[in-house]
């Protein structure tokens, strides 16, 4: 008979067991983070590049898997997102150095980057792999360890993807435990992870409840609230292009990104032209009866029907009993009101776009503000206009921290097709009860120790050029005395010597000391 390890007394649901599990994962991450801080920029970027390459290579496989497992989105678009969040992401930040000190000679300040430590990353079911890639890479670029807590609905593909990235990282020399994933995420365990003092910062992308809970954890948190982007199509817009772009945006991954346009606002004198352009762009314009059906189907008493997240337009139309032409990409739902009484003015993570017509530009702005008051504060908005005064008036009025102009909002606000930082965590700032109002990037995962000199111009400022902290790299492996092969162990000199001065040549050192001496003697 084969022996088995069986459980007689099951404590797995107890607080002790959950806290114990959380603690073990986080402490392993803390060790990894501690060692990671010893890495120089070259080895750090080599790891990031290797992981990005692994993510890029498996973009398609995990896109298919994510769609299969969650039922959300379009595999081809997910593949694109998975790719965008791998190599191009690292390339975007390639010239930003988060490892070496920065010297500001004019202000006599030297800044030394200090990684956060352990990043606890919550990833959503809508963009499981892209978000995971992105959070892993911004953590690695900044020499942080990351613990991923995936959405349960996307658990399997996330666990597999994280393992693959973890292996790529280890092969490239990353410390063991730099990338970990919680294989059985349940709310009680995630809460233990969030409240642990071993978590340095929580990067929360997910439902409002999860984000608020991250903020309540007593740990630093960077959370993103939901989106509900209003898009204004002005009379000065290129109407054809605007319609095309909005359809492109709404149909991209079937609006599973929170930056997708939710409510379109336009003017009476644009309405007819815009409808025509939309039809050409394969949007279907619902009649009053259709809108009724859509409303009832998308929203029930408990809120948005998550069945529809990332579903395509034809699927949704069929579910509601709306007949649409073949190839329809977006359902346009004209609504007369915006606000609490109209559910369709809320966030819809599917290719349904509410369509509202106003009389004047001013009214467009007040309606756009109302959309964001309802949901999505601090998130995204879009405007299509050739007149920059219109864009300025709109952007300075709406409570969104990114307003994309003449661009698909889904892609543009997330930093694809615009010069915004490419991200899968959109900071919703103070309007959205979040700590950061820009697209989250690696820069948010380091703080800087600032060496500040006396600002009096007559006071000496040190020569910091070429001076680096002791990058001593991975820990040398301790011996296992008596085990064959272990006899070769020698204490590594670098361990004893790695001081502040490594990276500086003897010549430079001598010159610096001489300079310092001269400065002292001058007094």
């Amino acid at each position, binding site marked *: 008979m084969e022996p*088995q390890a069986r459980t007689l*007394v099951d404590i797995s649901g107890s607080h002790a067991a959950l806290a114990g599990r959380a603690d073990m994962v986080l402490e392993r991450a803390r060790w990894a983070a501690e060692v990671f801080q010893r890495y120089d920029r070259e080895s750090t970027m080599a790891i990031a590049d290797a992981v990005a390459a692994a993510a890029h290579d498996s973009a398609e496989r995990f896109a298919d898997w994510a769609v299969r497992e969650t039922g959300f989105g379009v595999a081809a678009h997910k593949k694109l997102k998975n790719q965008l969040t791998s190599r191009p992401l690292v390339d975007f930040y390639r010239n930003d150095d988060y490892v070496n000190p920065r010297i500001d000679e004019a202000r006599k300040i030297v800044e030394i980057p200090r990684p956060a430590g352990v990043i606890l990353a919550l990833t959503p079911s809508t963009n499981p792999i892209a978000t995971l890639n992105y959070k892993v890479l911004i953590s690695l670029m900044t020499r942080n360890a990351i613990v991923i807590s995936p959405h349960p609905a996307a658990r399997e593909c996330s666990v597999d993807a994280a393992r693959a990235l973890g292996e790529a990282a280890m092969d490239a020399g990353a410390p063991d435990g730099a990338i970990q994933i919680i294989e059985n995420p349940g709310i009680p365990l995630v809460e233990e992870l969030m409240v642990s003092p071993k978590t340095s910062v929580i990067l929360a992308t997910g439902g409002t409840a999860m984000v608020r809970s991250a903020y309540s954890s007593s740990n630093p948190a960077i959370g993103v609230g939901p989106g509900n982007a209003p898009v204004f199509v002005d009379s000065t817009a290129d109407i054809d292009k605007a319609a095309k772009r909005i359809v492109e945006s709404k149909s991209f991954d079937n609006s599973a990104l929170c930056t997708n346009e939710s409510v379109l606002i336009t003017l009476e004198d644009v309405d007819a032209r815009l409808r025509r352009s939309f039809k050409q762009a394969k949007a279907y314009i619902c009649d009053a009866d259709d809108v009724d059906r859509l409303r009832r189907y998308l929203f029930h008493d408990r809120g948005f029907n998550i069945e529809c997240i990332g579903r395509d337009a034809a699927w949704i139309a069929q579910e509601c009993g709306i007949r649409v032409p073949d190839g329809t990409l977006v359902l346009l739902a004209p609504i007369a009101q915006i606000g609490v009484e109209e559910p369709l003015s809320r966030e819809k993570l599917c290719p349904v776009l509410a369509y509202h017509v106003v009389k004047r530009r001013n009214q467009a702005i007040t309606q756009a503000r109302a959309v964001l008051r309802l949901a999505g504060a601090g998130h995204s908005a879009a405007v299509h206009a050739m007149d920059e005064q219109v864009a300025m008036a709109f952007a300075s009025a709406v409570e969104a921290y990114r307003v994309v102009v003449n661009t698909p909002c889904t892609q543009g606000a997330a930093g694809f097709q615009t010069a915004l930082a490419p991200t899968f965590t959109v900071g919703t700032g103070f309007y959205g009860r979040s700590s950061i109002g820009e697209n989250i990037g690696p820069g948010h995962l380091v703080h800087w120790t600032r060496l500040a000199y006396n600002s009096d111009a007559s006071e000496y400022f040190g020569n910091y050029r070429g001076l680096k902290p002791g990058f001593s790299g991975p820990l040398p492996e301790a011996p296992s005395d008596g085990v*064959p092969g272990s006899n070769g162990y020698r204490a590594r000199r670098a361990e004893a010597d790695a001081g502040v001065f490594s990276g500086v040549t003897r010549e430079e050192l001598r010159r610096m000391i001489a300079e310092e001496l001269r400065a002292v003697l001058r007094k």
Partner: protein
Amino acid sequence: MSEAKLEFLDRSRAFWNPGKTQDWQDMGVDLVIDRREGYYLFDMDGRRLIDLHLNGGTYNLGHRNPELVEALKAGSARFDMGNHHFPALARTALAEALAACAPAPNMVYTAYGSGGGEAIDIAIKTARHAKQRRKIVSIVKAYHGHTGLALKTGDDRFSKLFLSEDTLGEFVQVPFNDLNAMEDALRGRDVAAVIMETIPATYGFPMPQEGYLPNVKKLCEKYDALYIADEVQTGLMRCGELWACTKYGIEPDIMVTGKGIGGGMYPIACTCIGEHCGGWLTEDGFGHISTGGGAELGCIVAMKVLEIVQRPEVRTMVRYVSDYMRAGLDRIMTEYPDFFIGIRQHGVVMGLEFNHEQGAKPVMKNLYDNGVWAIFSTLDPRVLQFKPGLLMTQADCEEVLRRVEIGIGLARDEVMGRHRKSA
């Protein structure tokens, strides 16, 4: 020292153990452990100590590890010690869990003791029954416990005191790392078993030379003796694998685990027995009887211990703790090269060697004064046993190294004088 502690120590002398109580005072260690948590001990006067003694790995997973406390609590809602004569749910479940991770494929049986010594006695009795011979070979300065048979395998300091040393020539001791002596002891084919601590702990962790242990095993096979691995201190991941003997490529016939297997929460020890030498379990299953051995509550805790130590996170952390401590100790060694002269290490099993007959005692005392509790090796006081826990945090490791650097410096000045030989 507080009045309360003084008074307590008097009581300890009066009612518990006058000699042992006084010896510690004489060594400058006035520790009376009160509260304990994780890798911290709190003296009854409130001082905190980081525990690097861990009673030889008993507190591998920390003092009062919450998961083990919970397992014990939950277990006691259903079990007690159990009836040692009957087939028992928990005892069999633990035996199965051990068989599933044993260092040899045919190690199917587990017999239980209530402590390490008893489990060693069971191992020796098992070997004697299997081979129908009495002779046992052990290592000079080995330590396998103080029960009847275990005592005879060890240093005579402890057996002679009680007039319990071997007088019949049944217990032979040979020097560690000496294969010739071992072969001489086995040559007569009259030996039931060789018993080996994989790394002799109380002797200060001298490390087996490359090839020594596997060759001892080969000699056992050659001369028809059994190999008993005492993994009481070295097992349970302390050497980076579940059982240290695995690292040296050994599949023992019998293995003993104790101390840490009970997580410091419920005493229990286990003798894992290869099918080929467990004959007595069939011939007369009542042959070894122990009311407290394999108490079912202990089994519940032990199963949790086995589950925890086999988590992948633990493996990584043991590596980090070993590597980090070693890097730090190497650095400290360069500070005091005339005093701190060597490190023996396998995983988190470490011995720090000092250049003085009794060098580890002043180091122990100065570490104690600096908030670290690590004990000298009873059988080689030049060596300090340095035994960090499996789950030690990076912060605590850094804290230990900071204090050790100071403590060793003070001890060095005491022993060698403040004058520094130029390094």
